[in-house]
């Protein structure tokens, strides 16, 4: 039995690298320090896995040899006139590099999961830039933390304790104790409420109404957390202040803040369902902090306005730097999606949605992004690596994806592998295969190989190398 320390968790963009695993006989038996998602992955990753290479014959998926799947996959890609290569966020940078080489070789479109997640954020960064940092800067210095349209309590469970409100920094102390005491207060009020409702047999206390004034904790010299969201999430319950915004009105709110922080007045009385007096106080708090940060999530990128919501948030952050130090960071969700963006960019100049069909990289999301290509039914083959589009894509896109020859490289059985024509069983990166991946703030970290994979499961990097090699051979004989 061994204890492996300093393990990097391959689940979300928080990228905790302090996980400890207990390994016995090539099986992970215990996980320490990880959140529920991390623990689930380390303990149950092998629950639904693919162990054999598969091809579809007469409508059924049958087991076959590695050589045959490589041959089939290479042929599909070499023959295709507009193949798409999608996924990439659940695998290592080393594998992604091979993927790009393969996409270039077959003249296809390569895209990663940013296209359904923070792609709009990237588009806005390309228009207005971004004032950001690494997470440690915030742990050391940030005294005002906004989670806007993001719910780390559920999606990035250790984020708050490792990097923000409940972490210890050189210049800022953790706000954990303050939170605990206020939590005790809140819980006892809740108990009284429940008791009152039972006794009086009706709901005595209505839904939480908007607090007319900011709580006094927002003006204390300590770490403060503010949540802006359309509903009161668990994170909002732990926050010093919760600002409820009308759904799909974040753009108006962010733009309004840009004027308020310059001490300019608005003509209107409320924005996004929030009275302007409250917004003015929040603006004062923003301007008065030592170092503030906006974390934002898919609530901005995927609600009405999409990239322009992020545009407004980035512009607000930039404008705030005239008055104080303010930074912003997108809460990247998926494991190595940041790494996919980083590798794509250094090799091609563009972060996602790259079209190699003319022999050089071309970029135009909306035109070269995979969902749009699929909805317009323009692709004629697909290679999916480390992702599950059949489960997650809009129905039209998934339909058009599966009706063409489809290759899937995945360690697990997923809706995508079940619909594929060629399936490669692969090793789990970060558990059975090593590599490099990037945290949400672009810090690269090594992934360890903790246990050995089953013999038939190769790392993605190697599978892709074999396919690439075969494609080159086929094309060489064609020329």
């Amino acid at each position, binding site marked *: 039995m061994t204890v492996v320390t300093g393990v990097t968790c391959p689940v979300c963009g928080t990228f905790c690298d302090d996980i400890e695993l207990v390994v016995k006989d090539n099986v992970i038996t215990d996980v320490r320090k990880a959140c529920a998602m991390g623990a689930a992955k380390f303990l149950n990753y092998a629950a639904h896995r693919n162990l054999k290479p598969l091809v579809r014959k007469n409508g059924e998926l049958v087991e076959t040899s590695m050589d045959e799947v490589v041959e089939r996959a290479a042929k599909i890609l070499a023959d295709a006139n507009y193949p798409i290569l999608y996924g990439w966020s659940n695998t290592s940078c080393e594998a992604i590099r091979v993927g790009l080489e393969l996409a270039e070789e077959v003249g296809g479109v390569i895209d990663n999961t940013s296209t359904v997640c923070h792609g709009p954020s990237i588009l806005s960064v390309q228009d207005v830039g971004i004032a*950001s940092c690494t997470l440690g800067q915030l*742990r050391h210095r940030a005294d005002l933390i906004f989670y806007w349209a993001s719910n780390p309590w559920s999606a990035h469970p250790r984020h708050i304790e490792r990097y923000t409100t409940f972490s210890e920094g050189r210049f800022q102390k953790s706000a954990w104790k303050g939170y605990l005491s206020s939590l005790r207060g809140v819980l006892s009020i809740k108990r009284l409420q429940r008791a009152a409702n039972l006794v009086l047999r009706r709901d005595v206390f209505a839904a939480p109404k908007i607090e007319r004034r900011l709580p006094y904790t927002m003006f204390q010299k300590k770490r403060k957390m503010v949540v802006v969201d359309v509903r009161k999430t668990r994170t909002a319950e732990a926050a010093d202040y919760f600002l409820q915004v009308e759904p799909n009105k974040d753009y108006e709110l962010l733009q309004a803040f840009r004027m308020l922080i310059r001490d300019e007045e608005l003509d209107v009385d409320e924005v996004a369902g929030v009275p302007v007096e409250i917004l003015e106080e929040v603006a004062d708090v923003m301007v008065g902090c030592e170092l503030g940060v906006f974390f934002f999530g898919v609530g901005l990128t995927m609600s009405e306005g999409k990239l322009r919501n992020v545009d407004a948030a980035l512009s607000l952050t930039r404008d705030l730097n005239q008055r104080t130090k303010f930074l912003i960071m997108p809460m990247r969700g998926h494991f190595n999606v940041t790494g996919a963006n980083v590798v794509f960019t250094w*090799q091609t100049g563009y972060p996602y949605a790259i079209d190699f069909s003319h*022999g050089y990289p071309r*970029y135009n999301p909306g035109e070269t992004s995979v969902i749009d290509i699929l909805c317009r039914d323009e692709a004629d083959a697909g290679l999916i690596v480390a992702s599950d589009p059949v489960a997650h894509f809009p129905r039209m896109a998934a339909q058009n994806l599966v009706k063409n020859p489809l290759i899937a490289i995945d360690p697990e059985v997923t809706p995508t592998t079940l619909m594929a024509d060629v399936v490669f069983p692969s090793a789990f990166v970060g558990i059975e295969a090593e590599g490099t991946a990037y945290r949400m703030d*672009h810090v690269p970290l090594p992934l360890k190989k903790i246990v050995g994979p089953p013999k038939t499961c190769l790392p993605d990097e190697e599978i892709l190398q074999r396919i690439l090699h075969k494609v080159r051979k086929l094309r060489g004989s064609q020329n």
Partner: protein
Amino acid sequence: MDIAIKDGKIVRKVEEKRAEVVDASGMIVMPGGVDIHCHIAGAEVNSGRLLRPEDHVKDVEAKTALTRSGVGYSIPSTFTTGYRYSRMGYTTVMNPSMPPLEARHTHEELDDTPMVDKATYPLLGDWWFVLEHLRDGLIEECAAHVAWMMSATKGYAIKIVNPGGLEAWGFGRNVESLDDPVPYFNITPREILRGLCKVNKLLNLPHTIHVHTNNLGKPGNYLTALETMKRVEDLAEGNQPAIHITHCQFSAFKGSDWRTMSSGAEEIAKYVNHHNHVTLDMGQVIFTDTTTMTADGPFQYGLYNLTGNKWVNHDVETETSSGIVPFRYKRKSAVHATQWSIGLELALLIKDPWKIYMTTDHPNGGPFTAYPKIIAWLMSQVARKKTLSKISKRARQRSLLPSIDRELSFYEVAVVTRAGQAKALGLKQKGHLGVGADADVAVYNVNPEQVDPSKKYKTVRKAFKRAAYTIKGGEIVVKDGQIVRPVFGKTFWIDVKTSLPMEVNADLKRKFREYWTVEYENYPIPNRFLHVPAPIPVKAEV
């Protein structure tokens, strides 16, 4: 005169019958180009690439049977970067700004940069361990920690950018002078410079400290540049350089504001002509639309305020910062034209070509593909006059160039584009064609005996743009400006051997979680991570 190459090295002679012969008659043969300062890999560079799709779309390179596809213009993708350098006869390039926490990223990109040997400099001027040790006067402790860092990040030299200013930028502030104390750390930029200069000596690093001065880009900052050089004069040993001031043009402004801004090149040249402890590189400006990117966070924010262009900022915990802003240098702008003049003035007024090297601080002053243009300016007064006639009248009137008739010879060009840079870097096998040197050779199609570069500067420019031959490690990789054989170079790094490595490891291990948000064991880069590592062992005095 013939040059013999065998097994990647220059040798005294080879058996001619069995050798491949390259007929370079009528052409000029130089060692492969060495670029001491160009931002080509890492977090900062990549953020710049991401920021500017509109810059890439106008300059594309299609895939060929031998080469990968890519894009330019001011921040080319990695493959394109390597190919373009090689096509100009360059064989060694130095990436000057690496945030240590993200060193892995820099090396991943360098590994994807073909054709050239490379190395990179970790940013250490604002590292908390440096600030604390120097504040407490613990030079040897500091040196031991810097040695650890050099090994952990696989770095080559100590890079210092706006010392103290980057830590101040953590809270949005800056330092204004060499004696301005860094908030919360009770140390001044002067102490940081002197401390790291001493550390550099103790560690016997092949290059000197590589310094981007305080107050960069501010009118009147030539005084800061002079101060910076003076402050370490007493630390120099014999005639050896003790400091390298990089992209000096940006630190050579006279005047008190943009209206009165003028060139401080004369004063700086005068100082450098009389002191041997300094080397510089130009940081030449080209009139084009390029991208500025430096570790100088506050300066980059200032550029955003000046231009209103999109701005990227990236502060790195415990260590450093960075900023990116697209920038267009306009011929008719008095300030930009003066900047153009300053770079050339520095190169021409400093008499010894071994002290000042040609760079554009790519991409800050312009893309490195503009090097042939600069060579033409350096070699031909006519070429300079032609550009002078098109620039802002005010800048032309103030420029010293009309009064300078010095023109660099081919030999001097070889020094400022390769030999001098290699020497400053301490790369003993680069920058010369003597026996034992690496077989990195560039052959340019211009006959120094027939062509007068002063008049035929266009021929010179064309020749340097597309090398007739580039030989890398003894193999012909470029012919007539085309890649004929893709290769991957080595990554040099300094393997400093100190006497107390265990103690340093223990100290860092203890404090690691307090300072950084990653684990101690995940920070250092193992040697096997680099595709072709080339450690240079060095024994330190500590």
